[in-house]
Structures are given as structure tokens and as C-alpha cells.
């Protein structure tokens, strides 16, 4: 399943990058380059070959785990990526943990106490978070918590305190999703017949909740966690740039700016694989939680 996805993604990307405006050779060599120099570099980068051949060559190398070097900076792509990936994964994981840890209890609580102040408060929070773009919220929080209150460092990765704000900012929209989904799901579940059955057995509200309602209400939420995690890696591009975190987001943005095709391609392939793995893990968790899902399939 993953392999066709990777081929499709990389091919589309390769085509787009080839037709994107801006000439990479001129960018590298500067304005004063001679015709000769340009032709030489083009040959060196295989840019004088047809698109399909270049793509095929690239993919053959990629299969041998040779992702080449950056056109503009010359670094080897795979080691650079491996060096940066932990930062991105850390921030993304923390953000999802934050969103899940805060969002699910809040969502469930507001479903149980429907139409309470807590419930209305959560609905308000969800709308607020969902309507604030990360770069804006991030900058705002930087000003408040880092510059004015001086509680947290502004940017960089020196200590664990550097990761608090980026994780929260990155997790903000996921938090909104988690609250909304777990609330809706819980409201659906407590209307179910089997909840009434549990009550008819003599289970008190706590047992009904912990033994019967929560696990069922988490099933749709878990699938969403997987989607959010994948989205979080994308969102990291923005957050890493705001907070100057040396993750793959920064790497990707720089590469796109300078038309550094091998870097963009490499990063996208790795990210696709990572997202695929995350989806696989989520599917496994779903199968554990929901016995109706068959492990084999």
C-alpha cells in the first residue's frame, strides 16, 4: 500500500518541481555565470536529460538509499534528515500528547455535563482554537509568555523548556479536534442501548462511564489521532520556523525556496513513509480497542 503511494507522491512532486518557475542553476551560480558554466552544471545535475529519465534515475538511486546531496549546500541528504528528524518528531509527538491528554478528558467531561458552563466553555475554546492560525497564535504567545512574562525561552532548542510553547502551538488545532470529536462521540455512545443495559444491571454512573462508555467513545477518536499526527508533521513547518527549531520543516522550506529538488524529494519520501507507519500503528491500536476489527485485514 505504501509503495504505490510513494511512487504517486514523488512523481507528481517531481513534475511540479521541474515546471516550477525559477532556475536553480542561476540561483546556484549567481547572475554572472557564463553560458559554459551553466551548461556544465546542468549536465552535472542531469538537468539536460528528459524528465522521465531523470525521475527514473532518481528513484533507482533512492531504492539503493542514495538520496544524493543538496544542490545548493552540498550536504548529504539522508544524514542531515536523520539529524533533524528527532526535533520534528519530538515536537509533533508532544503536541499530539498534549492535545490528546487535555482534549479527550475535556471532550468527555463536556459531553457528560452537556449544557453546563464547562460544556459551553469547551465549545468556545474549540471555536477559538480552530479559527486562529498557528503562525498568529504562535507569535502572540511568544510575545506574551517569552517577551513580556519571560516564563519561557523565545526560540531555539537548548532545554526542555524550549519545547513547551512550540508543542502547545502545534497542538492547538489538534486539541480543538480532540475536544470536538470526543464530545460528539461520547454523546452518541451514551444514547446507545447497551449503556441502558449497563444501567439496568445496576451499574452506577461511574462504572457505566468507565466500563462501558469511554472505550466505545474512543474508537472514532483514535483514528483521528493518527490523522492529526500526520497533519502535525505538516504543521511543524510553520511552528519550526516561528520558534527556530532545526527540524525537517525548516529544511524543507529552505529547499523549496532554493528549488533544491533532491532535498525536497527526499524529505517528502521520508515523511510519506513516516505517516504510513503512523497510520499502521493507529490501525493496530484500533484493532486492539475494537474487537469488531479483524487483525488480519
Amino acid at each position: 500500500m505504501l509503495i504505490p503511494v510513494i511512487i504517486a507522491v514523488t512523481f507528481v512532486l517531481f513534475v511540479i518541481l521541474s515546471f516550477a518557475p525559477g532556475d536553480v542553476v542561476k540561483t546556484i551560480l549567481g547572475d554572472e555565470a557564463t553560458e559554459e558554466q551553466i551548461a556544465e552544471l546542468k549536465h552535472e545535475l542531469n538537468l539536460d536529460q528528459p524528465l522521465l529519465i531523470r525521475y527514473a534515475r532518481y528513484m533507482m538511486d533512492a531504492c539503493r538509499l542514495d538520496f544524493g546531496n543538496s544542490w545548493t549546500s552540498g550536504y548529504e541528504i539522508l544524514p542531515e534528515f536523520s539529524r533533524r528528524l528527532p526535533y520534528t518528531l519530538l515536537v509533533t509527538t508532544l503536541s499530539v500528547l498534549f492535545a490528546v491528554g487535555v482534549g479527550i478528558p475535556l471532550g468527555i467531561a463536556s459531553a457528560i455535563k452537556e449544557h453546563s458552563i464547562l460544556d459551553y466553555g469547551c465549545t468556545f475554546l474549540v471555536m477559538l482554537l480552530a479559527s486562529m492560525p498557528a503562525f498568529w497564535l504562535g507569535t502572540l504567545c511568544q510575545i506574551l509568555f517569552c517577551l513580556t512574562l519571560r516564563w519561557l525561552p523565545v526560540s531555539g532548542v537548548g532545554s526542555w523548556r524550549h519545547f513547551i510553547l512550540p508543542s502547545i502551538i502545534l497542538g492547538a488545532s489538534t486539541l480543538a479536534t480532540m475536544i470536538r470529536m470526543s464530545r460528539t462521540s461520547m454523546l452518541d455512545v451514551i444514547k446507545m442501548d447497551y449503556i441502558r443495559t449497563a444501567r439496568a444491571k445496576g451499574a452506577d454512573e461511574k462504572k457505566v462511564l468507565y466500563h462501558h462508555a469511554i472505550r466505545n467513545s474512543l474508537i472514532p477518536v483514535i483514528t483521528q489521532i493518527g490523522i492529526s499526527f500526520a497533519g502535525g508533521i505538516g504543521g511543524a513547518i510553520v511552528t519550526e520556523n516561528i520558534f527556530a527549531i532545526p527540524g525537517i520543516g525548516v529544511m524543507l522550506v529552505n529547499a523549496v525556496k532554493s528549488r533544491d529538488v533532491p532535498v525536497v524529494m527526499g524529505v517528502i519520501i521520508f515523511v510519506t513513509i513516516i505517516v504510513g507507519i503512523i497510520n499502521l500503528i493507529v490501525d493496530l491500536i484500533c484493532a486492539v480497542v475494537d474487537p469488531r476489527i479483524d487483525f488480519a485485514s
Partner: protein
Amino acid sequence: MNDDLLQIEKLNVEYITDDAIVYALNDFSLNVKRGEKIGLVGETGAGKTTLALSILRLLPKKIGKITSGSIKYESEELLDKPESYMLGLRGRRISMIFQDPMTSLNPVKTVGDQVLEVLNLHFPDLSKEEKNAKVDEIFRLVGIPAERKFEYPHQFSGGMKQRIVIAMALIAEPELLLADEPTTALDVTIQAQILELMKELKEKYNSAVILITHDLGVVAEFCDSVAVVYGGRVVEIGKVEEIFGNSHNHPYTKGLINCIPDLTSTAPRLHPIAGRMGDPRIKVQGCCFADRCPNATEKCKTTPPPMVYEGEHGILCHLYSKEGA
């Protein structure tokens, strides 16, 4: 010892929905004796499920309300009891089988655990082995191999699910079983099997049963007495023989009996009498059946009929009152 197990008197239940108030039960009265098997018959919307949920005080929160009346269980007024008292009653002394077995089991717990939960809740002093032995025994009794208790609800057919629900309802050996149309959601051959099972179990357990059904045939086979429900009221009550073998019947009951092809076959959902049940959002002035009754008079539209008794056989109709219609 007092023979009365459950006494419901003038119970009124409303559902408060966004756009209207539904009067689901109106001055509903019913007595159930220890060990008595009583059939509650009536067409859809008559208020049968509402009655069962009221007894357990499990009406949907905020929507369903008991506005007046009394439910006495072993002479104790349930409507005054705290929730903690009801917790000890539910599943232990009064249990319920719900209308739809497909949805009444938790999909993410094994069926064995769901049956075991009743024991965990009400018999915390039993050892693990004793509890498991009891679960195995009840599975065998309802005709499901005990090894299958480790499986999940989706691995069972509708009829088997209903057997599991029955096991869950009976494992604590309750004094009263509320069976809300235990066979309606199943297909005909399975219906017969479940009914057969219930008959076997009725010999074994001495629980009183309120059997809710659309089906007079089932009642005739299973029950000692019948309460015919219409518009949230009991319109006729009596022993099975009195209801079926008697020319004195409520006009609604007459309609019901006439539409059974023969007593041994299972009838479809009842729509025997011309017209439909009145709008439950309107409180009626006179007799609730007046709109559809072939015997209705002017008086029926204005004055509520009295319950007229002949021995234990009661009919809620002006036709039978002393002054006549």
C-alpha cells in the same frame, strides 16, 4: 407474607421534548403478584417500554419524568428512594430484557464479561471461581456453549444475543423480570426458540414476569394474566381465560382478539382496528379509545370511563358501568 410484589398506582409519565410534552402514561395502575406471569399487550406507542423503564427509574434523563403516582415494590415506595437503593435493585431483584438484542450488548466487551458484571456488581463476596462457575452454568442453561463466553457480541446471531441477554437478566435470580418484546426483533423460527427457552426457564426460576408484547398468541402461551394497554392506560386486565374466553371485553381488546388468525401462530405487529392511536401529546377528556371505538357514545367523548370489575377482571369502559353507556 404479603403476596404482592409490585403495585403501580395512578402513574403519570411525560416526555418533555423540544416541541411538545408527550403524555406517555396516564393514571396507569397495575399489580403484580410474586411469581405471576403477566402479559402487557398493546400497539406501538401505547407506553409499554415507558412503564418498564419507570419501574427501574431508567427513563431518559431530563426528557422522561414521572409526574405523579406511586410504584411500590415489596411495599416500599420506589419513587421516594435514593438512587443508591435503585442500584441494588436493578439487575439483582428486578432485571430487564430489552427490545432489541442487536444493540443491547456492549460491542467491545466479551459476552462472558458482560454476564459476569452482574455478579461483580451484586455478589462481590463470591469467589472468582464461584462466579465463573455460575456464568458457565447460565450459559449452558440458555443454550450457549460456555467456551463461547470469551467471544464478542458481533460473533453471535440475533437469537444467540438474545439468549445472552436473557442469561444476563436471570443470573442474579431476580424476583421480577421485565421482558420488553424479547422476540419481536428476531425472525419467526428464532422467536419460537426464544419463547421455548423462556418457558423452560419460567419453570426453573420462580420470578414474576412482565412480558411486554404485541402478540396475544405469545401471551396465551406464556402468561397467567393479561393487561391490555392503550394510550398509556390499562384498559382491560384479567386472567388469560377471562380475557380470551369471555364475551365481556373492552372494545379495543375485542378488536385485538378478532384479528388473531389462530392462537398458535405468531401475529404481525398489531394494527387491527381502523384508525391510529390518538396523539399522545394531547390529554384526552373522555375515553382515550373513543375516536376508534365502534360503540362510542356522546358520553364517551366527555367523561372518562371507570374501571369496572367483575371479580379480578377489570374493564375500563362505560359499556360495563352500572349506569350503562
